[in-house]
């Protein structure tokens, strides 16, 4: 009846996950109770959960990512404490638990923090920058988000019911095969990634179509803001790479569930095929994450230097070059597999070549700043911090791209330091820069500057204090994923890293405080003009937060930096906007399809993990029924009458007239 599920699945003997689970459960119940008692439930349901508005879906993505960042961050804190105390002792974590923590940390940080964060920002901003009303497929967008949330939910369920994988974040076989991992940990891993992976693919298809087919009048490819370009590149990579992940996980699951022999030791299975497949997805994944961050830095650096982006076309070229080359380097993740010097040399060189377009980008940002009027607002701090940090990460990356060096550094703490260097210094800094930069656009008020800067400095310094010691420990021969160790030379570095972790944590706390303080002072921080940073691209041409239809009329773009152009021209001709002619606007109707789909996906995923077959069938039927019901709708759009559009837009235009007289100085 309940498959493999029974009371032994709840880890009554392990206090840490149980207490953590209880705290989370109480927290969720408290929030739910508060929502119900205060009567916010209908609002949440109608305005957020069933929303197909790209801006709200973007906000929900970022919210999911932030919550999961806390979860993945606490895993990181636990690991750093363990390695600090586990010198010639067992530490405070049992090996079983420690292995689950590092697997969960990697999985969560990549799939449920970095991915939703960048997809959320892209969702929120790209249609605005393109000057259009919505993404190509609004309801599908909601489905994609909720499937990602399902994946996150399943990972968190594994904390209390059953266990998570003990295999590392990529679940390498044969360790992840049934004979070595008989528990449900790997199944939790595989099904949550499978479900959220489908959500990511859906988002990718949606954004590619949006960028290629839904640009406003006059928005040529070479007039698109950089963030749209990097979004395009990143989502092309999603569309090309995520099916590989789907296929690979499907193969692993077939091995585990039906006794297939893709990656087994016996009957001719090939373990190295898993390495090839997973990294053929995994390497592009790195660029899926970092390319949007590059786009954010381009926008931020240009805005806060008061200059057009230097070398715009070389930037586009560099972006697309990275997009292509990132697919040709995957083998550098296993130089030690014995492919031979020729193969290793080719992949080593291909890996180093990526440094060229990346270098082009760094120089372009520097030249954009050169001669500009730089304002050191918080997003700019994150961008400059990124440039310094990412160069170090890039250089160590070129180092490990040298096959002989990689034979020594492979699987060492040096490697751990390297990829944290690029992922934190690249993706996370980018996400934070984008968060600070576009927060006023999403919510209509700025974030507190003082706490933002404090958050930056603590995170920035905390990062270095944590990860530079890991480089050293790696050089001293410390391998990754160590439960405990007996080498005295590593100890001091682990202690320093733990201190760095504490500093990093203060940075995170500052960010939470910043949010609380800003929400409390939101009236004082209100952005009435819709253009708080004197921005250059179209998202600043509409009010903050934008109306549901984004733009009252489709903007007509005449060049790069569309909004900057508009402002300067308006100023030169000393007039505001011409009174535009308003038309009725058709917008897609909200739909619970996404939420209902995710509900059935959760049921199905949980049932598959625990082998509860009747429930699997029920979930499948439910998912199909949802699609049919959605397809049966007769009215999928509603009309906003022209008078209402005019009324909403007039307020925005009034505020903007006063702005035009002040800003737009070239």
């Amino acid at each position, binding site marked *: 009846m309940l498959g493999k599920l029974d009371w032994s699945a709840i880890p009554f003997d392990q206090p840490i996950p149980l207490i953590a689970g209880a705290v989370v459960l109480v927290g969720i119940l408290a929030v739910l109770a508060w929502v119900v008692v205060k009567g916010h439930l209908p609002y949440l349901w109608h305005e957020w959960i069933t929303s197909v508005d790209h801006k709200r879906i973007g906000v929900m993505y970022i919210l999911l990512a932030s919550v999961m960042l806390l979860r993945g961050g606490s895993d990181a804190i636990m690991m750093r404490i363990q390695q600090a105390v586990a010198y010639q002792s067992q530490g405070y974590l049992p090996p079983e638990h420690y292995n689950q923590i590092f697997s969960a940390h990697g999985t969560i940080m990549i799939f449920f923090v970095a991915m939703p964060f960048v997809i959320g920002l892209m969702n929120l901003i790209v249609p605005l920058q393109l000057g259009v009303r919505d993404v190509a497929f609004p309801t599908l967008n909601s489905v994609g988000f909720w499937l990602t949330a399902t994946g996150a939910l399943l990972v968190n369920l594994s904390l209390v019911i059953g266990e998570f994988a003990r295999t590392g974040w990529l679940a390498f076989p044969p360790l992840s095969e049934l004979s070595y991992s008989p528990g449900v940990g790997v199944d939790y891993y595989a099904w949550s990634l499978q479900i959220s992976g489908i959500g990511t693919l859906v988002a990718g298809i949606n954004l590619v179509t949006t960028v290629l087919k839904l640009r406003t009048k006059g928005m040529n490819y070479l007039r698109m803001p950089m963030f749209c370009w990097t979004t395009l590149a990143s989502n092309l990579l999603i569309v090309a790479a995520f099916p590989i992940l789907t296929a690979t996980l499907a193969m692993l699951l077939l091995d585990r569930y039906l006794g297939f022999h893709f990656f087994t030791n016996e009957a001719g299975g*090939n373990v190295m095929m898993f390495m090839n497949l997973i990294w053929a997805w995994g390497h592009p994944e790195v660029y899926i994450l970092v390319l949007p961050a590059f786009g954010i830095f381009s926008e931020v650096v240009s805005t806060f230097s008061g200059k057009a982006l230097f070398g715009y076309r070389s930037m586009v070229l560099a972006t697309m070059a990275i997009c292509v080359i990132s697919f040709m380097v995957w083998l550098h993740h296993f130089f030690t597999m014995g492919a031979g010097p020729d193969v290793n040399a080719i992949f080593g060189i291909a890996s180093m070549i990526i440094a060229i377009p990346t270098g082009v980008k760094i120089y372009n940002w520097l030249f954009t700043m050169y001669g500009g009027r730089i304002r050191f607002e918080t997003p700019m701090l994150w961008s400059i911090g990124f440039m310094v940090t990412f160069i170090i990460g890039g250089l160590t990356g070129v180092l490990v791209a040298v096959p002989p060096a990689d034979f020594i550094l492979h699987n060492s703490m040096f490697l751990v330091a390297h990829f944290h260097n690029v992922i934190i210094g690249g993706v996370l800094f980018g996400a934070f820069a984008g968060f600070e930069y576009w927060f006023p656009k999403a919510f209509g008020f700025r974030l507190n500057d003082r706490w933002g800067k404090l958050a930056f400095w603590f995170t920035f310094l905390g990062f270095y204090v944590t990860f530079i010691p890991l480089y050293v420990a790696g050089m001293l021969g410390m391998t990754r994923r160590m439960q405990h160790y007996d080498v005295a030379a590593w100890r001091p570095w682990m202690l320093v890293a733990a201190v760095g972790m504490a500093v990093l944590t203060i940075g995170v706390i500052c960010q939470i405080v910043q949010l609380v303080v800003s929400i409390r002072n939101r009236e004082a921080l209100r952005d009435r003009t819709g253009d708080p940073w004197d921005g250059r691209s179209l998202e600043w041409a509409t009010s903050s937060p934008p109306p549901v239809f984004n733009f009252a009329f489709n903007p007509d773009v005449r060049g790069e930096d569309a909004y900057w152009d508009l402002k300067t021209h308006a100023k030169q001709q000393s007039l505001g906007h011409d009174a535009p002619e308003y038309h009725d606007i058709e917008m897609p109707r909200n739909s619970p399809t996404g939420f209902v789909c995710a509900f059935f996906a959760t049921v199905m995923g949980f049932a598959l993990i625990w082998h509860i077959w009747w429930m699997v069938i029920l979930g499948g039927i439910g998912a199909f029924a949802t699609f049919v019901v959605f397809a049966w709708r007769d009215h999928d759009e509603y009309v906003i009458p022209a008078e209402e559009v005019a009324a909403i837009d007039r307020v925005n235009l009034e505020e903007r007239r006063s702005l035009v007289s002040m800003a737009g100085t070239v």
Partner: protein
Amino acid sequence: MSMTATAGRAHADPHHIGLVIGHPGPAPKRIVTAYGFWVFLLSDIVMFSCFFAAYAVLADQTAGGPKGSEIFEQRNVAIETVCLLLSSFTCGMASIAADVRNRFWFYLGMAVTCLLGLIFLVIEFREFADLVARGYGPSRSAFLTSFFSLVGCHGLHVSAGILWLLTMMAQVFAKGFRADVLRRMMCFALFWHALDIVWVGVFSVVYLLGSGV
């Protein structure tokens, strides 16, 4: 797309490449839908290519079990292929019927497509059942694992396609040839034809190459 010379519009062409290619604005819904679905189909083909790659890697790993030439039956595969290619034709007829809003030919075309698809699936299922009964199931060897997965993945797509096909017939029955129904019909037709292309790959790589060895 209209092209205009740069004269007098230097502002629109800051890099002086000589031509300004005007962008007309968002594409119509039909184009957007078809485009998005194409992108999905490409991603689906990437997924298939992984199973093709796995088959290529594992084809010789028979672990003492049968080789491809010992288990493939050319006659069955030929019938399967004819069914699927014919169904693509009838699906095309159904699309044309939908475009001219002819219910009778639409239903007929879809029904024949469904029938041919079902015949394909029955033959495939019998082939699989027969192999399993002889002890050559997917867990016998890595070769059989990759064979069952690749061919089965295609079969699964065909099954989903039939489910979709029936839904489309029901939709036309209930809603008529509405714009959104027609867009879905177009996507379904793209899907069904793409399955044909994948089958040509399966047919060539698995059955033709495999039988010769």
